[in-house]
């Protein structure tokens, strides 16, 4: 779908400084305006998906930067792309589309580089309300960043310089005369769409547009006209006069995250976000970007009205940068690890769906999650082993809240007792919840994630019992070992789709699982006694579920494959690799019950 096919799209042309800019507007012009500025080598179509989602809420404006897409190019090209001229263009567009109200600015790549100029120069003051920056630092800030590292080179700083220097290889290339133009108009221009699909996982479609070879050739002057001049003599007054939201893709091959280390100095009202993705996030992660832009613009509009600083409206927990606004579904969320995980995500500002067969407990988790920072949270009563119920839940979640960004398959039940005492009914129960519950979750929600094609993460709660054999837990360990293997297989398959899969192996954690566990071969009274006793032992161990929750969030951020949590879980994992025989020996010991 191209931009002009979107409902309500109108195209207009804005004349400025001898050129004509092609501008497209979407949405209600009476609403606050959001201006999206594209990067190199792109045209405004890079924003199509993001613009489509923002248009319901805001007046969205896109324009082709001079020399790109359907805008005309300056003559001569040399000297026609300076940041000063780009600022003139922006002001002309802003005056045309929103003459009496400041606009919200969003920039990607070179769009962000030039937007940094817009928000740090005097003459735009009062014309911009907020700025969302992704994958494009200010050349002035970058210049100071380099100077700092050159003037006091510690090993770490030299490392950072060399790292970014290597990532900027294309900048040097673009400074050579004529060759880049020839390449873009020749083979590179032809290969580019396929390269983007392969390397960046940009979905195929009508992007990049057919104007790409010309855009890229003209755009080379963006670099030649500005980079050397600014990096050698950066402005010392490049302070942002508006609130800035910085979105850093963690897998960007062109820009190091370290570039933004001291950005607070230059942008006092800064909100940071980090996104699991590569460079072309407007194409690969449009949903996430649209929701963050929407949230930031709304917060700024509200702040303009009641005068509260924007940062106060954004959660600031340890993982808020990464999970703010994401949709997280946790099963087994009425207690223990599931509930603690739901709370940890809530504190990071995620929206939470708390699923449990205990309806009251799930509702309670959702209620508390809202109180500690989740912008929204819902409790759902579903038994994970019931396939139809899970299908229904997935449909409902997708329709009402959106596609799940992080899925935590945590629901599980305990079963202890020797193999000969374990009935087939016991086996069925344990496998239904512990294994089939995870399979249903991965299959149904995993498919939604894969079909959306914008990445995601699945966390499965296995157990240290997955690799620690034991004569006391044959059924439980078997179910958990299956979960561990399932997670590792799934991880291999989903890697292509940028969906991470982690298996968490907590170990002995103080949760309610012991109070509801079945003890095969024990009568009711004996079972009650054993439950009490194990609960007491787990209570004495007293490892809090909150720490497991923390390990889960960390596993998602780092995309870890297998995470043993407690020291005993880590020890057993190590032994299972170094000396499995020792573990087999331990497995023969009778547990102290």
């Amino acid at each position, binding site marked *: 779908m191209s931009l002009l096919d979107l409902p309500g799209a109108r195209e207009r042309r804005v004349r400025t400084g001898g050129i004509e800019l092609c501008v497209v507007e979407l949405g209600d012009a009476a609403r606050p305006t959001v201006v999206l500025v594209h990067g190199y080598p792109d045209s405004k179509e890079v924003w199509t998906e993001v613009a489509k989602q923002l248009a319901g809420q805001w007046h969205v404006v896109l324009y082709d930067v001079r020399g790109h897409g359907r805008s005309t190019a300056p003559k001569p090209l040399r000297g026609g792309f300076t940041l000063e001229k780009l600022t003139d263009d922006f002001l002309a567009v802003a005056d045309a589309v929103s003459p009496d109200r400041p606009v919200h600015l969003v920039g990607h790549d070179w769009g962000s580089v030039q937007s940094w100029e817009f928000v740090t120069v005097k003459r735009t003051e009062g014309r911009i309300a907020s700025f969302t920056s992704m994958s494009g630092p200010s050349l002035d800030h970058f210049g100071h960043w380099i100077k700092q590292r050159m003037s006091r080179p510690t090993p770490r700083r030299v490392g950072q310089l060399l790292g970014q220097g290597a990532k900027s290889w294309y900048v040097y290339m673009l400074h050579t005369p004529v060759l880049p133009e020839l390449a873009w108009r020749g083979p590179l221009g032809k290969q580019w769409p396929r390269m983007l699909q392969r390397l960046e996982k940009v979905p195929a479609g009508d992007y990049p547009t057919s104007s790409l070879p010309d855009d890229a050739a003209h755009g080379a002057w963006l670099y030649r006209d500005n980079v050397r001049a600014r990096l050698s003599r950066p402005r010392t007054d490049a302070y942002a006069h508006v609130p800035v939201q910085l979105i850093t893709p963690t897998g960007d091959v062109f820009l190091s995250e370290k570039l933004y280390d001291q950005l607070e100095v230059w942008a006092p009202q800064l909100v940071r976000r980090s996104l699991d993705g590569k460079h072309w996030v407007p194409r690969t992660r449009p949903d996430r970007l649209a929701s963050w832009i929407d949230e930031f613009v709304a917060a700024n509009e509200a702040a303009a009205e009641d005068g509260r600083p924007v940062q106060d409206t954004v959660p600031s927990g340890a993982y808020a940068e990464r999970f703010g606004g994401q949709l997280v579904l946790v099963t087994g969320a009425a*207690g223990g690890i599931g*509930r603690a995980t739901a*709370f940890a995500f809530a*504190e990071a500002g995620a929206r939470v769906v708390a699923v449990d067969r205990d309806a009251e*407990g799930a509702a*309670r*988790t959702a*209620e*508390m999650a809202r*109180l*500690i920072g989740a912008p929204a949270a819902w409790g759902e009563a579903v038994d994970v082993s019931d396939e139809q119920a899970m299908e229904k839940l997935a449909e409902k979640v997708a329709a009402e809240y959106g596609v799940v960004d992080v899925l935590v398959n945590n629901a599980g039940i305990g079963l202890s007792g020797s193999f000969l005492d374990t009935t087939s009914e016991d086996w069925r129960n344990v496998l239904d919840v512990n294994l089939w519950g995870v399979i249903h979750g991965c299959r149904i929600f995993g498919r939604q994630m894969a079909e959306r094609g914008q990445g995601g993460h699945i966390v499965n709660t296995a157990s240290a019992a997955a690799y620690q054999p034991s004569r006391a837990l044959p059924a439980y360990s078997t179910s958990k070992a299956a979960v561990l293997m399932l997670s590792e297989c799934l991880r291999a398959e989903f890697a292509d789709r940028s969906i991470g899969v982690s298996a968490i192996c907590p170990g002995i954690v103080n949760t*309610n699982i012991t109070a509801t566990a079945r003890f095969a071969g024990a009568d009711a009274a004996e079972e009650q006694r054993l439950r009490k006793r194990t609960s007491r032992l787990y209570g004495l161990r007293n490892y*809090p579920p*909150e720490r497991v929750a923390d390990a889960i969030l960390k596993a998602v951020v780092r995309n870890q494959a297998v995470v043993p949590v407690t020291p005993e879980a880590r020890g057993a994992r190590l032994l299972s690799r170094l000396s499995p025989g020792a573990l087999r020996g331990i497995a023969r010991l009778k547990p102290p019950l």
Partner: protein
Amino acid sequence: MTSAVKDQRAPELEGFREVQRLAYACAEAVAGRLRPGVTEREAARMQRDWLRERGVRDWFHLPFAWFGDRTAFAGFKVPLQFFPTDRRLEPGMPFILDMAPVYKGFTADIGYSGCLGLNPLHDRLLADLEDHRELILREVRERRPLREIYEDVERLMIRQGYANRHRAYPFGVIAHKVDRVVERRWAPQVFGFGTRSLKGLLSDALHGHREGWSPLWSPYRFSDHPPQPGLWAVEPHLGFRGTGAKFEEILVVTDSKDPEQSAFWLDDDLPHVRRWAEERVAA
């Protein structure tokens, strides 16, 4: 004592009620004077001074104050961490004031949870404490072993989504016995506790040890007995991540056969009880 408390208006109970009211009045007065920037030490001193001005000379324990995540006893490992620090109060921060004055020979031990400004989470915790007050009274009237009641309180907290923070108290107690204290001119303190009251508690412990009960209500085996007649300062304490809330007040247990008379809260006209009543009216 046990026969005296059968009548709720017994002069002895009046004495305890008077000092409990005095302590809560102090908590409310000090809470009203808390401003951003006040430290825990200053808040503790404000309580001490307020009560001294009104004739308090001895203490079961000196006043405490906890601010912010210290209300949830985050990271409390050693008893010294209970003592007031230089932590400063900030807008939106929860606080707890806890004091146990001795007045005219009667002891009270109270806990007051408040918050500087709006904090919906703190409101939720305070509201959820009501169920605990009802549960404790109901099960004490049923003469359930103290240890079982303790476990039921903990279960309710877990169901509500909270952590049981009175586990962090010495011996993990949810309550301890209080009694009359002989007034002497010299009333020294050790580690913030009045020696005369400690002596009372200690003699109770010795006495109870012979008869198979304990003046400390804990999760351990020594609390595996039905409620012992007397006055118990009960303090269920909820913790939720960085926020904590508790109340502490005196529960009267008697040897009466009439369930109503066998146990009752010393006073129902207290800030947290009034707050719940107001909420019900508002709803």
